[in-house]
């Protein structure tokens, strides 16, 4: 079963392993597809929608992170439509919470910020929400500032899938979604 197959990404023929995702395959061959929720070693959730690509013969956009490669697949990762939608996606994230890059501890080492730069987002067309969101400073070593949270759930998955601790989850729904520690405890009071 480990026969190599090949796919085309933006016209270029690329060898692939059956069962691998489009995103892994592309990244392994130096092809850039933007993504914020994907992280190597974790399950894929298809939440950020930035890795959507066009696949020939499929009339809707598919997330590269959860779409397995198939022999002969022809994939477009860059098109006007995809560029437009990716910019909108990033702008929506910036508008959702309070990302004040200038005073952020992650300034200059932040995936959201660098992706915005790379994709040419220089302003946000949607009105900012300016929500009031919690900041948990109880833990001795860490702080949780949900002003900057984009709900990528990488932390939730690391904690569950790598550590096996299951401390974190996402509570509520919609724009009210917030990261929650156990039964809504202060981080300092958690079991870990």
């Amino acid at each position, binding site marked *: 079963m480990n026969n190599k197959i090949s796919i085309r990404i933006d016209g270029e023929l690329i060898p692939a392993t059956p069962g691998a995702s489009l995103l892994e395959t592309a990244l392994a061959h130096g092809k850039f597809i933007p993504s914020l929720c994907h992280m190597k070693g974790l399950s894929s959730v298809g939440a950020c929608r930035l890795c959507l690509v066009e696949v020939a013969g499929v009339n809707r956009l598919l997330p590269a992170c959860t779409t397995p490669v198939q022999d002969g697949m022809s994939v477009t990762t860059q098109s006007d439509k995809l560029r437009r939608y990716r910019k909108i996606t990033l702008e929506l994230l910036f508008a959702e919470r309070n990302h004040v890059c200038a005073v952020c501890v992650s300034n200059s080492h932040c995936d959201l910020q660098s992706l915005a730069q790379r994709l040419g987002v220089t302003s946000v067309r949607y009105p900012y929400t300016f929500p*009031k969101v919690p900041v948990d400073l109880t833990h001795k070593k860490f702080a949780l500032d949900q002003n900057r949270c984009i709900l990528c759930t990488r932390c939730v998955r690391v904690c569950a899938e790598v550590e096996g601790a*299951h*401390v*974190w*989850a*996402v*509570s*509520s*729904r919609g724009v*009210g979604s917030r990261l*929650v*520690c*156990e*039964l*809504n*405890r202060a981080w300092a009071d958690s079991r870990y």
Partner: protein
Amino acid sequence: MPAEFLPGDAPQRGALSFEEQDFIDRLIASHQGQPGMLLSLLEEIQERQPHKYLPADYLEYLAARTGIPGAQIYSVATFYALFNLKPQGDHTICICRGTACHTRGSRDLLERMKLQLGLVPEEDDGSADKLSMTTPDRRFTLRTVACFGQCALAPVVEVDHAIHGHVNERALDREVDALRKGGA
């Protein structure tokens, strides 16, 4: 997969009585391993409370006994509209905000009830159309539901689990007055 029971994980807070602990233990036993277990457990715990909510102690105990991570329980309890984390009023007035009810004026009913019960939404309450508010004296809870599926009777209001169809402001006022006078 349903999480396994971890024997070493004793309840941390002893706020529940033996009777209450026993209730939960039996509840867990009757649903163990079944699909939909957590939903059913939470539904039955809430239904048992006179003020129809999920007390934190119960959730702690439930987490400890089932081994379901607390975060997951909290996530579920806040995701579904049915669950309350705060005690509800003695009387619940639930206004349907379904399409048919909306086109037949349920928003006016909602506004009227807020006025009648003296409920003022806080600024961060989000949208005024989706809410659950309880009066400070805990007599009344006013809430909305997406749809009762009673569209032919629109607008529909449920007062203490009794469905009223073709409701107008006057009829609703009378209903609430009667509850007020009825005590308890």
